[in-house]
């Protein structure tokens, strides 16, 4: 298996704030990666960085992104248009607002088709992929408001996959759906990587869903990836104090009537980040050094963790 995406020490922000700080990871072929964390940790910004569609006030300040060996951080907007939708597809949290209400599903999927082919061929292809997503061909003629949330999300996925991309960015695609519909979407995604030659980066705040779906989990906190590793390992024996607390919040860990231990405090705002480890204000085992420096990446077995607890930093 080869790497299709490699991100090296990427920093995103502007003069005042840094949203992503020193993000590095890579995605293998046919791999599902989950990025987990609370709201406002920079998960969505990470996805937007990959396709270079950042909000106007944010920029990639340093670092490199390689996609299929090509350094896309250097590419111009015109060249990026040939990668977006063609090589990298993206789906979103609320399909109802991310689909244009005035055009039919068929029209919206069709306009993404890259190659210059006849209209009939395009339509055939759209209907084929709609059926693959478990939708009837009628959906081609329907407008977004005529579909249920689950169907809209399937149409979104069809739209993202119409050009057979190698990478799918999924920005909390199941958060707005009810449990059964969400499960349908999850199993669909799992099937898709087998049929298409597809990798998925799945952003969610649900760590048990991440464990179920993905090969590896990245835990993000305030713009930093604090822990990376195989899903089962991260879930069963979390290393970073933040991951441990996150898993400790899951309701399935508790019996009826027991009080759930939530994480005290809240995610720091990007305008007011602590000097050292961003988790230090909420951390129970913090040391002096934690408030001074951001911990480096420490490799433990298959995993990488950013915490001074590991390695010999406590003395210095």
């Amino acid at each position: 298996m080869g790497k299709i995406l490699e991100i090296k020490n990427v920093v995103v922000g502007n003069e005042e704030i840094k949203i992503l700080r020193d993000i590095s990871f890579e995605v293998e072929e046919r791999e599902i990666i989950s990025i987990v964390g609370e709201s406002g940790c920079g998960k969505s910004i990470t996805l937007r960085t990959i396709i270079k569609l950042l909000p106007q006030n944010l920029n990639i300040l340093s670092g490199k992104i390689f996609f299929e060996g090509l350094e896309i951080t250097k590419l111009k907007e015109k060249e990026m248009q040939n990668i977006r939708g063609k090589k990298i597809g993206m789906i979103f949290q609320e399909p109802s607002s991310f689909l244009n209400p005035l055009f039919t599903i068929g029209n919206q999927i069709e306009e993404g088709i890259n190659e210059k082919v006849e209209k009939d061929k395009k339509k055939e292809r759209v209907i084929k992929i709609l059926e693959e997503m478990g939708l009837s061909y009628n959906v081609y003629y329907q407008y977004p408001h005529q579909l249920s949330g689950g169907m809209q999300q399937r149409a979104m996925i069809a739209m993202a996959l119409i050009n057979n991309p190698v990478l799918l960015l999924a920005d909390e695609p199941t958060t707005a759906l009810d449990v059964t519909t969400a499960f349908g979407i999850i199993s669909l995604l799992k099937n898709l990587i087998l049929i298409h030659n597809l990798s998925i980066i799945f952003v969610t705040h649900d760590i048990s869903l991440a464990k179920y779906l993905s090969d590896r989990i990245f835990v993000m906190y305030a713009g930093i990836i604090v822990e990376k590793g195989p899903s089962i390992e991260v879930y069963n024996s979390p290393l970073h104090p933040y991951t441990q607390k996150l898993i400790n919040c899951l309701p399935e860990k508790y019996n009826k009537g027991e009080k759930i231990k939530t994480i005290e405090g809240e995610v720091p705002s990007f305008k007011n980040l602590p000097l050292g480890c961003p988790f230090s204000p909420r951390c129970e085992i913090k040391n002096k050094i934690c408030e001074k420096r951001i911990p480096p990446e420490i490799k433990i077995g298959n995993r990488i963790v950013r915490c001074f607890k590991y390695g010999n930093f406590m003395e210095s």
Partner: protein
Amino acid sequence: MKRYILNRLFQFIPLLIGMTFISFLIIQLSPGDYFTQLKMNPEISPETIEKMRKVFGLDKNIVVQYFYWLKNVFTFNLGVSFSYHVPVSYLIKIRLKNTISLSIFSIFLTWIISIPLGIYGAIKNKRWEEKILSFIAYIGISIPSFFLAMLFIFFISKTAILPLGGTTSIFYKGATPFERFIDYLKHLLVPGLILTLSGIGSLYRLMKNNFLEAINSPYIFTAYAKGIPTWKIYFKHALRNAINPMITIFGYELSGILSGAGLVEIITGWPGMGRLVLEGVLSFDLYLVMASLLIGGILLILGNLFADILLALVDPRVRFK
């Protein structure tokens, strides 16, 4: 769709009757009428005035008067003007053409200028291009149209590049049809441009805000993520969504075809409906005022219906309800 339109047309008649009834009451309940002024004239005897009141039916109960008027309207008789002593329909016929050509000219020009400007302003949002445009638009909104008209007249009378007042020049009678048309157009230009200039500002701002809202919507992000070129995102995805709210405004604009230009007509001396009606109101010319209210009402309802149909055609969410 057909049923919907028919339904709306059926609501039309009771709506018009209600509207005209209330207007009739308001006009007739205000103290005095056309003949009150004649009473001041010592040469006209009170008997003559009473006789004239009877002729015009003004001696009867207000409600009865109204139904007489309504009955006549259904036979296309709009009554006789007190001050002009000719049928109201004749008066309106000569003025209507002028008002409609003025309104259509200025509405067309206003829209054709402000829609592209609004799009341009939204695309260049917060840059100097937009700041200049928005500043000018602010000035345009702040200046009342009558003041703009006065400035215009002052400017035109100093330079004499365009004719002022009326619809025709002296040589009109001997001119060819084409020359007549050009002459008419030249006369139209002064009130037309004043109306256009005073309308562009607000329409520009509306369009700019609509387009801005559209290009900041999530579905635009989806379109970017699909790798669609920016011009297509603007002119397919954003434009269609931005233009929808404008259609409703267009419907209202249609209803103002007759009355919207009144003030400018009076100041520039354009012989249109606005001037006629204002003079009618001042002299208690009941049937003239009623006729113009009736036509205004019909246009308002038709304009709204037209906008609703147009909206249903472009917005599937309205269509499939």
